[in-house]
């Protein structure tokens, strides 16, 4: 391995590229404490006025609660629907199984701008635009493939000896599923849930097509805000969002290791 001692020029290049990669995420923290009226860096003085402004912005707060409840409902539904589906995909043998799996994960291949428009047109005739049900349904279309993939990987790498032992000892299939398979699947469920939560909470393109003045999510409100004006308010919101994301990542890291969950 000695030959792989990275040379100093290479280390400096890698360091600079990391700075480039992380710059926009890191910058919002100091910027959120700006005292300026406009977007200026470095700020001429520091204050917490933009945090106060954020918490006084009823539209943002309402959008935050919408996003939070939407992501929570979508996460629970995704797990409830994807766990049995992943179980069928990994434990039962039937014709066309691989084809079905590909169809179920196909929404991930479609650009969100196309999927958003496609769902908009169909939902318009169902009367689902700007409704909570419509948003839940549309988010499920994108979160279910993630959940299915993560859970199927977890289930297929699971040791089946315990399941078989339980079965030979006379446990009914449902008992085996709830007492053996699901508990062993817990880390996969946590990872899938975290991923679904983040995907739903951050989803903006599809949601942009389906929201209106009646109902809106936080990313959509932030998008509209940035589109109309640029001041440090969004920096305060971004800083809080990044902390929330870090919290969720930490849960996943504890549960199964980030590498395993995402680098598949």
């Amino acid at each position: 391995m000695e030959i792989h001692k990275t040379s100093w020029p290479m280390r400096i290049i890698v360091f600079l590229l990391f700075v480039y990669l992380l710059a926009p995420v890191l910058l919002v923290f100091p910027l959120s404490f700006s005292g300026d009226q406009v977007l200026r860096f470095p700020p001429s003085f520091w204050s917490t006025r933009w945090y106060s402004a954020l918490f006084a912005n009823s539209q943002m707060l309402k959008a935050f609660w919408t996003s939070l409840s939407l992501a929570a409902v979508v996460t629970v539904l995704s797990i409830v629907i994807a766990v049995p589906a992943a179980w069928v995909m990994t434990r039962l043998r039937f014709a066309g199984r691989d084809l079905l799996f590909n169809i179920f994960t196909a929404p991930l291949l479609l650009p969100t701008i196309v999927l958003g428009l496609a769902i908009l047109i169909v939902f318009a005739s169902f009367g689902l635009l700007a409704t909570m049900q419509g948003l839940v349904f549309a988010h499920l279309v994108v979160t279910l493939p993630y959940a299915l993939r993560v859970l199927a990987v977890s289930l297929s790498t699971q040791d089946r000896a315990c399941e078989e032992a339980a079965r030979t000892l006379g446990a009914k299939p449902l008992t085996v599923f709830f007492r053996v398979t699901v508990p062993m699947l817990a880390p996969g469920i946590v990872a899938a849930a975290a991923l679904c939560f983040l995907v739903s909470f951050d989803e903006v393109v599809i949601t942009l097509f389906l929201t209106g003045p009646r109902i809106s999510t936080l990313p959509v409100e932030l998008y509209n805000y940035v589109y109309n004006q640029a001041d440090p308010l969004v920096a305060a919101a971004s800083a809080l969002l990044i902390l929330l994301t870090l919290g969720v990542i930490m849960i996943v890291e504890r549960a199964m290791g980030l590498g395993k969950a995402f680098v598949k």
Partner: protein
Amino acid sequence: MSAVPALPRPARQWRDGELAVLLLLPIALINAIGFILPVLNLARYSFNKSRIGGGMEAVFTWENWAGLLSDPFYLELVFNSVWISLAITLTTLVVSYPIALYLHRASGSWRTFLTVLVISPLLTSAVVRTYGWIAILTDDGPVVSAIKAVGLPAPSLMFNIKGVFIGLTEILMPYMILALMAGFGRLDPRVEEAARTLGATPARTFTKVILPLTLPGIALGCLLCFVLAVSSFITPKLMGGGRVFLLATEIYDQAIVTLNWPLASTLSILVLIVFGAALWAYSAVLRRLD
């Protein structure tokens, strides 16, 4: 059917099938109603006739397609989108490769830490990251101030394609790095070591050993980033300030502002055709590599 007593084996298989159908029903319904039906409907809409002001007629006409292919504005739009996406993809590759190679060689908790750093931006909303870039590249931002401080003329980096280019490249980096790392599995350190001990210079080792072995990862990363660049919407919309016209922003404008759903559908199908072409190019490259 299930009430009829049958031979044990077929009966057992039938129950499995029944169970499979029952358990897959929810996901299948959501997939059918939220994905397959909307996409087929979208393809159908691209042949509808639009009326000025938002209405449309359900007929079958090639009008949208013919109009699209004969309008210089749209031809330029498609050409620009593809060309800019290709340029962004190549830039992303160049800035991601050193990080991926470094990560591939790192080990232990250092590697885990850096991998988390690479993945974290991926889990941060595109709106937040685009906003970060607006703050960096704005006229009062650190980059322009630094350039002014050195005494150079202040460049305009916002509300034009330059800003979109810089921002989008960074936003796509994590995808490229992860794809490259997945492809680096073939890169055995002993092969490199052999090249070096046999007297190859670092540059020669790179072009003759490392690069060829990592080409599959490069191809995958480029496919992924190109596809994401062509369909990117948030960054061009927010950083372009209405002056950068790309396929994805035009789809949104036609759908929401102009309310011309048939034309928006036609543009969407066009994006899918570009995707198909990218996929075809990718498999052609892979075939040549084998």
